């Protein structure tokens, strides 16, 4: 065991040795090992498809392993189903929460194991105990609130409280940060650290290297279903991990930005949306990438949705010098404005439809003659997009639901490149996408600007904002509080504006 060299504070809780899993035609896992100690945060790192999900599904009893053994406190155990995992004290929090949305916080925390007094549910105990658990997590949520009314971050805390209530000793968190904004992230870290202090072992899955350095004691890297290495975080640099994970260097991820900015493309003056956006003014030039930074809820998404005509607003806007008043997304698209939404599956894709339909949906008139869609023209357009954007798909008739996040994002980009997009708005363009695909999407963005396309990029990942933007607007509480040029921007400078240091004159 390579991992056994690591010295940890607690005793070894879990050992997975030589785990293998084969699906028909695919070896999903081969010889993977993982050791977690009490009170340790152990990061599991790898690109999408590296086998992280399969491994934790084996650990949580959702899949049965084909090879290898699992030791719990040194003794071999068999995990045949979720009940076995729970009985051992293993809980898993998936990205999609397992909560009853119509139920209250307390009901969720005690779901399936409500305390009883005779035949009646002992609500008093359930509520008191829920309160206690939430307090332990520093969560100021009412135990009687309905889950559907909670923010994503609060729901995550309810999930954690639910796990604690089940006497969890090992908590597996599958990309817990993927659903959170920057502000909520710090809170999550505090919670994880406090769990760690209570002696709970934690398996923390993430794409984001920054988080691993901020939180983890050890990191195990997987690639293509194989075990690569286990390292003490203190002993490695970020570049080392990237190399282990994708086989190349981090600095290659962001393209060198060298496009000169052209004339002003979009000019926005006094954009207002009641309670959400207050008097926002900014501009984007042709060939320019403009970053929008700020914590979640600062109004960034609300601004760009208004620019795209998706929500009611008031503003004076011009596109290429002409008045621009989009009253629907259709108007915006006609003017050459496109929006890649943050919620790819919920607001972007037609999951049950194929790559071709998803690609040409907005450009359908351009392949239609006499009211009839011309198949040959459509295929030519789609094939060109698949080639140009290097979309990995067996055919244009493949359903997008079966594609990876990175390829799905490329399909959305293909949709907007099929119409004559002049201004591309991207809301969290690389959320939930593995490092390899990220680099490709950055490359595409860079190439688009060379053709004179202006890009607005909202991102909660500061390295991304800094790596890609020519200019950065920082938003807070519905207004733009700062504008930074590429050279002047730094994480510190952005955070200062974002969380409210002194006010700077807006661009």
């Amino acid at each position, binding site marked *: 065991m390579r991992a056994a060299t690591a010295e940890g504070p607690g005793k070894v809780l879990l050992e997975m040795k030589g785990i293998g899993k084969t*699906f*028909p*035609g*695919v070896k*999903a896992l081969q010889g993977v090992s993982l050791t977690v100690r009490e009170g340790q945060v152990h990061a599991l790192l790898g*690109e*999408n*498809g*590296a086998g992280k999900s399969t491994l934790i599904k084996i650990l949580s009893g959702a899949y049965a392993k084909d090879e290898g053994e699992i030791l719990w406190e040194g003794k071999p155990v068999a995990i045949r189903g979720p009940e076995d995992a729970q009985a051992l004290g293993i809980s898993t929090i998936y990205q999609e929460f397992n909560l009853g949305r119509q139920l209250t916080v307390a009901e969720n925390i005690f779901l399936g194991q409500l305390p009883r007094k005779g035949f009646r549910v002992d609500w008093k105990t359930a509520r008191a105990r829920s309160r206690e658990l939430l307090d332990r997590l520093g969560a100021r949520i009412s135990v009687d609130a309905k889950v559907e009314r909670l923010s994503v971050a609060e729901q995550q805390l309810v999930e954690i409280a639910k796990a604690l209530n089940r006497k969890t000793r090992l908590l597996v968190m599958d990309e817990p940060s993927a659903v959170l904004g920057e502000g909520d992230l710090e809170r999550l870290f505090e919670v994880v650290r406090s769990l760690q202090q209570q002696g709970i072992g934690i398996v923390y899955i993430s794409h984001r290297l920054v988080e691993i350095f901020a939180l983890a004691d050890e990191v195990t890297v997987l690639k293509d*279903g194989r075990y690569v290495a286990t390292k003490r975080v203190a002993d490695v640099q970020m570049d080392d991990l990237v190399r282990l994970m994708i086989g190349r260097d981090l600095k290659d991820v962001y393209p060198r930005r060298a496009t000169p900015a052209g004339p002003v493309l979009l000019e926005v003056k006094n954009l207002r949306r009641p309670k959400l956006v207050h008097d926002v003014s900014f501009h984007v030039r042709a060939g320019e990438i403009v970053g929008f930074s700020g914590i979640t809820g600062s109004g960034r998404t609300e601004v760009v949705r208004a620019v*795209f005509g*998706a929500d009611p607003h008031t503003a004076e806007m011009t596109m290429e010098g002409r008045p621009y008043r989009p009253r*629907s*997304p*259709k108007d*915006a*698209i*006609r003017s050459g404005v496109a*929006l890649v*939404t943050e919620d790819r599956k*919920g*607001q*972007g*894709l*037609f*999951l*049950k*439809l194929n790559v071709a*339909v998803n690609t040409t*949906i*907005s450009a*359908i*008139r351009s392949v*239609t003659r006499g*009211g*009839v*869609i011309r*198949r040959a023209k459509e295929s030519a357009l789609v094939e060109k997009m698949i080639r140009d954007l290097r979309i*990995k*798909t*067996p055919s244009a008739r*493949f*359903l997008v*639901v*079966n*594609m*990876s996040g*990175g390829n799905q994002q490329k399909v959305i980009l293909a*949709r907007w490149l099929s119409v004559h997009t002049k201004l591309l708005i991207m809301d969290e363009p690389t959320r939930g996408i*593995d490092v*390899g*695909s990220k680099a490709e999407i950055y490359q595409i963005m860079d190439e688009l600007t060379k053709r004179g396309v202006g890009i607005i990029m909202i991102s909660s990942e500061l390295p991304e904002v800094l790596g890609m933007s020519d200019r950065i607007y920082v938003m807070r509480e519905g207004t733009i509080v700062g504008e930074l040029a590429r050279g002047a921007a730094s994480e510190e400078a952005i955070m200062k504006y974002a969380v409210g240091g002194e006010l700077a004159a807006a661009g």
Partner: protein
Amino acid sequence: MSTVATTSPAPPRTDFLRSLGSFPILGPVAALILACIFFATQSDRFLSGANFSLILQQVVVVGTLAIGQTLVILTGGIDLSNGMIMALSSVLMTGLYANSGMDPYLAVLVGMAVCVAFGVVNGWLHTFIGLPPFIVTLGTYSIAYSLVRIYTTATITDVPPALNFFGDTFRIGSTAITYGTVAMIVLYVIAWFVLRSTPAGRAVYAVGDNPEAARLAGIHTGRVLIAVYTIAAISYGIAGLLLVGRMGVGDPNTGQNGNLESITAVVLGGTSLLGGRGYIMGTLVGALIVGVFRNGLQLMGIGSNYQVLITGVLVILAASVDYLSHRGK
């Protein structure tokens, strides 16, 4: 998952079902052919041009209702009002002539106009008030039901010859085929072409799959939905016309099961009730499956209670195949 090769692999036993998922029309067609082969071995009267013509004739009304139902279901909705809209149009088309002496063609136009009005109301309540289609059309079902009875409780027998046209026949060889059958098939071909090869058809699938994504892709989802409910209602009106042609009367008691019968055809045809996935020609096959079973069992001398039973079993089978072939996607 980053590459296609490692996309969440399926357990082997559903591989066959998954492949069915890629060609959903094959399942219903296979079922139809198997049923025909079976009945051909059971009754020497089954396999004849006249009998097939009869089966087609018998599915004309439900088949036409199911065209509109398919459109609505493709958008993720459901239309419970269709049979009663048909009934209302058919008693108006016949009654305005028989009781009020209106010109028969004008009476047909009035009947169709009432259908359009119902379609617009269905679509508008769903789109702009945001009521679920189930509730909206349950309401309009009752409204149309009562309007039929307020207008007439007596069967209208004085039908103008012009309205009998769709019940009239022409011959191919020695087989008589009704014009109503031809009309239904033409409607299916039109619907198939529009759904498959026009921007409007794409919009229907897109709205059914993901309305918000459709809006953000530049589709006026409200207009699409209102158009779908309206065009659907027009198909119910045409079904009413075909019904009058077939039955030779305006019948106020008709249409009460039209919703469930048309949904049965849609489901048997492999269209998902969740919207965004399905094939209009599957619906025709679905309607034919019901017709073939009813006819074949009758030829075998098996009573109607069993015919209904077998329809129930088929619906569950079809829905199971659909569910299993798309599970986990």
